[in-house]
């Protein structure tokens, strides 16, 4: 009993002190990834954690079980209730969370979309941190697969879900550069199929591609689940020499395939840097050292000068990073 009242007294005085010295109150950041158990986000979280060690902010992660559209909503409400300063979220839906996020923002919480944006609902978050300028992803992938197949022959795309907004932006850009760039005039996109980001469906779709298009020379899979499944299929079928695969994949997921030659190279960015940038930006805005307006710039160690672009979007890197046999062991995520 005594212990309890002592604790209460301490926490009360702590509350009083922190109330008085508001400026020294560490900024509290919570990050809500798409779902739990997704290795991609582990590395993003590490970025947040390291930045918060540096900046002395309080960081927590709260992840729902599934990546279903509504699963993040109770988490946003609970964090709003906890009174955190910043909610960073990798949204599972571009529109289902508008109202809850507005509620959080009306309480003075800074809402950041990280790694994916609320496309066409920009007014419901304060800023977005994206890895690269997404208009460059599509052409970058076409160039990579082109260089592998000598810019000649049939290629196909194995995507995530039919309405995945990021993937669809990239695929549209791929189609566009195949059409307009004379360098790619001998390359022919024969099919776009969808594996729903499920290992099993992605595998079946990849197998069907090899079956249906016997002259297929290249596959682009701009999703981490798809590219891993396609690599496994090509390895099993022993077709690494005939069909060249590339896509967006994490080094840990693709390491065995790149080492044994099934896949020459894949691309991605650093999710770690997204966490880093998000934390620096959040703390800066909360402390008043960074102005969240289009055109403003600020410095982040290791990332250099960051400029806030249209729709308050920031990118961590200019170009995609390419992982191949020479450099893949330098990365661990």
């Amino acid at each position, binding site marked *: 009993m005594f212990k309890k009242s002592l604790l209460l007294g301490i926490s009360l005085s702590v509350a009083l002190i922190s109330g008085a010295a508001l400026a020294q109150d560490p900024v509290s950041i919570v990050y809500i990834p798409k779902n*739990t158990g997704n290795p991609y986000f582990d590395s993003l979280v590490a970025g947040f954690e390291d930045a918060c060690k540096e900046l002395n902010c309080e960081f927590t992660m709260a992840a729902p079980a599934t990546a279903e559209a509504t699963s993040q909503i109770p988490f946003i409400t609970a964090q709003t209730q906890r009174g955190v300063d910043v909610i960073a979220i990798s949204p599972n839906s571009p529109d289902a969370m508008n109202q809850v996020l507005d509620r959080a923002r009306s309480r003075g919480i800074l809402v950041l979309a990280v790694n994916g944006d609320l496309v066409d609902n920009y007014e419901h978050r304060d800023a977005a941190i994206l890895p690269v300028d997404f208009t460059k992803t599509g052409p970058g992938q076409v160039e990579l697969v082109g260089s592998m197949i000598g810019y000649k022959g049939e290629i196909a795309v194995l995507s995530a879900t039919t309405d995945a907004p990021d993937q669809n932006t990239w695929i549209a850009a791929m189609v566009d550069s195949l059409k307009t760039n004379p360098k790619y005039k001998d390359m022919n996109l024969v099919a776009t199929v969808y594996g729903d980001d*499920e*290992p099993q469906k992605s595998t*079946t779709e990849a197998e069907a591609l090899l*079956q*249906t298009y016997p002259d297929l020379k290249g596959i682009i899979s701009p999703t981490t689940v798809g590219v*891993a499944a396609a690599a*496994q299929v090509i390895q099993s079928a022993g077709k690494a020499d005939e069909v060249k695969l590339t896509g967006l994949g994490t080094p840990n997921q693709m390491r*065995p395939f790149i080492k044994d030659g099934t896949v020459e190279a894949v691309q991605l960015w650093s999710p770690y840097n997204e966490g880093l940038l998000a934390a620096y930006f959040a703390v800066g805005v909360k402390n008043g050292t960074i102005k969240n307006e289009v055109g403003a710039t600020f410095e982040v160690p290791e990332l250099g000068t960051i400029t806030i672009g249209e729709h308050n979007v920031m990118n961590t890197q200019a170009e995609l990073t390419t992982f191949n046999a020479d450099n893949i062991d330098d990365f661990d995520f």
Partner: protein
Amino acid sequence: MSLITKFLSTLLHRREAGIAVMIVLLALVVGAIQPRFLTLETLRIIALAIPLILIAAMGQMMVLVARHVDLSIGSILAFSSIIAGIMFRDLPDVPIIISIVAAIACGGALGFANGVIVTLFRLPSIIVTLGTLSLYRGLVFLVSGARQVDPQYIPRSLIEMSQTSPIFGIPWIVILAFVIALLTYFFLDHVRLGRQIYALGSNPVAAPLRGIKVVPLTILVFTMSGALAGLTGIIYASRFGYVNPGITGVGFEFTVIAAVVIGGVSINGGVGTVLGTVLGVILLGMVNVALPLLGVSAFWQDVIYGAVIVIALLIDKSVRDRSARALAAARSAA
């Protein structure tokens, strides 16, 4: 009636014959639209799609025959798979076979727990396993720390089991699946304990009167289902090359139940054959492979699964009604 026509008519009236005819028809129709369907390569793809469902289906079939159902196999699969993956990653010096055995044992233990709860408290298995479906998934996250086991940790030799074998290059997992099916057949048809499962399922009230130890037998059935789901977890790791705690085996129970019910196993217990289940799995595997080849959206897959379960139930019902009427007619004639 000559013996031959009698034989033919029994054959035609058997459920297995119906499924076999459907398999042939499906192959012809799909082949007519997309000739590439009728190639050896497709056969390889279908063969690879089967083991995952087939092994778990053997367990689920026994559970259904015993007049129960096991909805937790997807989570058990994930649990065994992640245990094996963690052992591969953290204990690289331990022989692979030990990890595999451990994974199967874990599956068996979870199945055992299902069986104990169902029998000890006399609860409907469907509700119990609905609960353990969530509970076991939570355990998967717990033991893995919600972290995926990456491809680099899955042993090469395990991956190769999904690719080839010295026997005509038929992948090991395919051979394994059919060996499991044969063993199940032998167990259910030639071992007393196996035959008792049918007796238990067709009349649970009378079973104890015939000297069947209902509680241990039911627990055994659930344990076998769990162990087979555990083995399926190994096949999963072998085929897909990594284990993710969140997506591995989610919704798998519906695929397996669909396959088993198509195969003519009755949800009222007591009825079902290994051959029928194998054919049901093959039919479902063919549908899975045919859809993308025909360019049909994967969205239709669930519709087809659901429709197939409902239709199979209706067929099953009409068969049972007809045989009941035939039985009644035979009785009144005598």
